[in-house]
């Protein structure tokens, strides 16, 4: 094989296009190789490049006339050995990551054809680096060498290529342009799948504007600071070691040293002692104007020795001079020494303070090498200065007490910095990457994500006590077991005046628990009421709170509990809607650190004693804050029907049908689970069987009352975990806009919403992984059958359930329509659009099995208003 591409050298557009075609075919074949085969080829190629490091280094220096052979040997060695070592065990083929539990799998695929532009400064090492990472990632790579370094670049590529092919890689997996020209370079960049561009800003900009994804990197102008606390000897010798490496051609090489004033002389002396030359008088100008021409670096001095550069500038220095140092003051770009010099020429600045040194470094960096590398020599204990430096420098690599040439390329002075000869400079340098580019940048990673279901839960108060007459027994625990000392009771005026608090107070007195009572809670509790209560609560300082009442008293007590435990909470934040309670933005404060919370319901309706919900209204603005978080869950619920025997009929009716709605919505919710289904089903049965008697006979039907009490709590437990649906969303707004009791509002729309939900072809279904297909109809039929209703098919069964509900509503005195309730048509229509949008936005909407469109909600409202046939809702 000749040194050119086999057979036809690539010198024209036609030969290049032909080459790219065979390379693409080679890559398609290589893309099928196993990890084992790829690793064998990668190893063989690295070994071959490693063995050729000296001839390649010699060739590069001879051809380009730049740099130092011995240093280029190190670079070649590094490119072969360090790159191999870093990726030897890295998975780059097929499945590289798998988590069966989460159903996630990552599969690495090659990108395809990589275009690599190689600079003159590192022609062989960069070629080795890029070909090796392409082989490791099953990519083909076409190299566009710089005309000034084409022989050595191509030779490096050829050595890697031949070793790879000998180890089994497809022929033509690596290619190159034999006669580089800008047209061919541009063509390669346009044709490739990704560009790996190392070099000057012009070329990198061209890569980015080619229209293909590019991993381009920017120019450097590395500023080094030597702090007062630094080890001066280590600092100076590190800088000399780095700056003289390959005659200063590494992009991460130091271009300036800013020494703090108190160590400046010591730094200067150490540089002199180690063979660096400080330019005197007009020598600074002479060298400056030789090194920089019109703001660009003179091509003739790049990679030359200090002696040679001095000679070009007409300055006499000893032949063994290591670095020419210009002591300058300006960091402006009008100062030649402030530029990147690509040679052993260094600027030296004096800074009065560390802050000033940061200012100077940042300016040098941003003018000459934004995003590249910055260096700092400092006592590692100076944490604040280290942090200030890292914060200030717009550099993607910040090396500390490290020669930056060898340090920036990684893995030599720090073993977690990825080894690379292509250093990303981030957006500051106009690049797409800010890290050291490596093999992983040349992969397309496919993520295979299998459907997984959310973890669900069943969360209940730690203690739910029930059975008629259980209250004093349950309360006993507060004293005898828990040793509570102070109890604060929250209730409403009616209950207080009618002696409902007395048995509790008696029990507390008996146990020696002091107590206070707030009995001013009104229906739809307000923030102002809660504030009043919490004022008393704070001065009393309870270690247990007892909420006695219906939903309003229990909600008000929960809010007071929050304000008592966390006086600084913001209700707007707490009430922020969420899609998933576990992913909500707001983290609810931890409750229960000051007081234990006991809820004792006196109506069979809200289930608030076992739910994590509470609603509070700001009376001055009218804002309602629905709060939902398991932190709001009472610690103990005491369900004693003795507290409920004498509920008025209206309350029995409204709260009873509310229970039914809770149970039905929880049962068809997208979050319904086997844990909540049983609770919900049993609640429906208890309501169907007992609500008529409870309504008609009241305290004369104690068993019916007791069953309704259980139904209420069961339904509460169900919807505390499975949540509700659009029936509640609509009822919330209907009730608020038209002053309809909550339970009645639910009842007025219940059968319409059920017909609507039961559609087998909903416009949109609810989003939840567990909710697989629209199945509300089957779920409603489960309820029907549980209640003994069996038709000839699901539709008839469902009709029977609807009929039974309509009959129940009639029995307990629910009006036939919203209109019949007494809402004026003009008032209703005037608020309809607003109600619709607010109902859509209600927190309950998300769990509905059918994701409602606003127009659909509006139709439902209208049907329910006029009391139309519920079948109409089934057609929506």
């Amino acid at each position: 094989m000749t040194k050119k591409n086999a057979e036809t050298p690539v010198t024209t557009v036609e030969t290049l296009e032909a080459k790219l075609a065979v390379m693409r075919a080679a890559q398609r074949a290589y893309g099928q190789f196993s990890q084992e085969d790829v690793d064998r080829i990668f190893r063989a190629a690295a070994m071959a490049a490693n063995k050729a490091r000296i001839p390649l280094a010699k060739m590069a220096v001879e051809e380009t006339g730049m740099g130092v052979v011995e240093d280029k040997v190190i670079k070649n060695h590094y490119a072969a050995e360090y790159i191999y070592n870093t990726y030897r065990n890295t998975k780059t083929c097929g499945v590289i990551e798998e988590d069966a539990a989460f159903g996630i799998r990552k599969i690495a695929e090659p990108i395809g054809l990589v275009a690599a532009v190689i600079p003159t400064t590192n022609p062989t090492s960069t070629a080795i680096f890029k070909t090796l990472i392409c082989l490791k990632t099953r990519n083909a790579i076409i190299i566009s060498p710089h005309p000034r370094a084409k022989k050595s670049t191509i030779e490096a590529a050829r050595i890697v290529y031949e070793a790879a092919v000998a180890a089994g890689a497809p022929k033509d997996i690596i290619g190159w342009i034999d006669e580089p020209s800008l047209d061919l370079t541009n063509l390669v960049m346009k044709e490739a799948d990704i560009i790996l561009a190392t070099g000057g800003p012009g070329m990198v900009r061209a890569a980015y504007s080619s229209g293909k994804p590019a991993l381009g990197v920017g120019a450097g102008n590395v500023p080094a600071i030597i702090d007062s606390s630094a080890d001066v000897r280590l600092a100076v010798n590190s800088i000399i070691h780095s700056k003289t490496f390959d005659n200063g051609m590494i992009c991460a090489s130091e271009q300036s040293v800013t020494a703090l004033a108190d160590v400046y002389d010591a730094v200067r002396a150490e540089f002199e002692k180690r063979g660096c030359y400080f330019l005197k008088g007009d020598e600074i100008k002479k060298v400056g104007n030789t090194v920089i021409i019109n703001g660009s670096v003179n091509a003739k001095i790049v990679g030359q020795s200090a002696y040679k550069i001095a000679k070009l500038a007409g300055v006499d220095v000893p032949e063994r001079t290591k670095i020419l140092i210009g002591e300058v003051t300006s960091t402006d770009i009008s100062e030649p020494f402030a530029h990147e010099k690509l040679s052993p020429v260094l600027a030296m600045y004096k800074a009065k303070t560390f802050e000033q040194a940061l200012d100077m470094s940042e300016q040098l960096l941003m003018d000459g090498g934004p995003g590249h590398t910055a260096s700092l020599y400092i006592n590692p204990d100076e944490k604040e200065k280290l942090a200030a430096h890292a914060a200030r420098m717009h550099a993607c690599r910040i090396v500390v007490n490290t020669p930056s040439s060898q340090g920036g390329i990684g893995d030599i002075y720090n073993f977690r910095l990825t080894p690379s000869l292509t250093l990303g400079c981030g957006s500051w340098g106009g690049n797409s990457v800010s890290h050291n580019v490596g093999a992983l940048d040349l992969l397309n990673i496919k993520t295979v994500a299998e459907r997984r279901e959310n973890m669900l839960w069943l969360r209940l108060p730690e203690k739910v006590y029930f059975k008629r007459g259980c209250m004093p027994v349950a309360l006993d625990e507060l004293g005898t077991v828990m040793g509570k000392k102070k109890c604060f009771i929250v209730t409403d005026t009616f209950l207080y005046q009618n002696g409902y608090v007395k048995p509790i107070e008696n029990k507390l007195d008996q146990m020696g628990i002091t107590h206070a009572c707030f009995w001013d809670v009104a229906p739809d509790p307000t923030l102002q009421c809660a504030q009043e209560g919490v004022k008393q609560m704070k001065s009393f300082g309870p270690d247990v709170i007892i909420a006695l009442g219906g939903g309003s008293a229990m909600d008000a007590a929960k809010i007071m509990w929050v304000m008592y435990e966390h006086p600084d909470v913001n209700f707007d934040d707490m009430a922020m809607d969420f899609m998933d309670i576990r992913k909500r933005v707001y983290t609810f404060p931890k409750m229960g650190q000051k007081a234990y919370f006991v809820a004792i319901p006196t109506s069979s309706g809200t289930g608030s004693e076992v739910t994590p919900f509470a609603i509070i209204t700001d009376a001055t603005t009218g804002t309602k804050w629905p709060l939902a978080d398991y932190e709001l869950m009472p610690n103990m619920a005491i369900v004693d029907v003795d507290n409920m025997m004498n509920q008025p009929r209206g309350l029995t009716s409204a709260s009873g049908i509310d229970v039914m709605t809770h149970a039905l919505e929880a049962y068809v919710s997208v979050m319904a689970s086997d844990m909540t289904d049983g609770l919900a089903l049993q609640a429906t049965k208890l309501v169907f069987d007992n609500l008529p008697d409870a309504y008609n006979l009241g305290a004369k039907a104690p068993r019916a009352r007791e069953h309704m009490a259980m139904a209420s709590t069961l339904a509460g437990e169900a919807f505390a975990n499975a949540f509700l649906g659009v029936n509640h969303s609509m009822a919330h707004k209907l009730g608020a806009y038209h002053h309809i009791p909550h339970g009645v509002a639910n009842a007025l729309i219940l059968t319409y919403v059920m017909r609507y939900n039961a559609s087998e072809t909903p416009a949109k279904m609810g989003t939840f992984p567990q909710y697989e297909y629209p199945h509300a109809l089957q779920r409603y039929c489960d309820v029907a059958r549980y209640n003994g209703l069996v038709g000839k098919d699901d539709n008839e069964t469902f009709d029977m359930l609807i009929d039974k509900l309509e009959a129940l509503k009639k029995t307990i005195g629910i009006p036939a329509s919203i209109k019949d309730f007494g809402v004026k048509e003009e008032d209703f229509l005037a608020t309809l659009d607003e109600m619709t949008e607010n109902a859509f936005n209600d927190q309950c909407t998300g769990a509905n099995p059918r994701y409602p469109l606003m127009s659909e909600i509006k139709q439902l409202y209208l049907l329910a208003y006029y009391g139309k046939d519920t079948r109409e809702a089934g057609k929506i």
Partner: protein
Amino acid sequence: MADRQIIEEKSYKTVYREGNVIIKAFTASHPMSGVFNEAYIHACILDAGVPAPKLLGVSQLDGGWAISMEYVAGKTLSELAQENPDRLDEYLERLVDIQLETGKYRVPQLRNTRLKMENAIKTLTDIDASTRYELLQRLHGMARHTKLCHGDLVPSNIVVKEDGSYAILDWAHASAGNAGADAAITYMRFSLDNPELAEKYLRLFCKKADMPIQYIQTWMPIVAAFQLTKHRESERPLLEKWISVAEYQ
């Protein structure tokens, strides 16, 4: 022919004035397309409203082609500067203002500056291929604009009339492109005669254009190479120095 006054004589053309008419007469061997192209560019910029001498015609003259245009009464900025050296700063400022003003015109019919330079650099066989490669790479990395670039906007090409208004002469090199390139050309032309004035111009231009000096400097190797295609031996040392730069790494 008694009042024919020769203004400029070159191997391929003679420019003279006859009363209120300026005639640019090209030799018979000068390509016809070149003459018509120059007249076309001139017509385009006049159509765009750029202040320049009125074009009167293209005609045959002594076997070659000639462009005739209106003579603009007044003095060029360079004449003014020679007459009033103490007002040099004022004239420099005028130059920069006029250059920035020119850049606001859009003349889409004109050739693209970048392509023009690219073609010129490709013909520069007396510099080595690597240098050409780097120059072209640099050119490709430059931002692509469509501002009117005169291509040789020096004080001798700007006539200030008695009423203070101005006209720009010699549109042969005009193109549409990056204003930084046009400024770099002006800077280069100053540098060939008067480096100090060149620095002054550059600072003033960048300040008024709110442009970083590096931006203009990046163009310098490119415009130097472009200028080399004119093969003026006296300019060669400076221009060769300017193109011999490496890209930052």
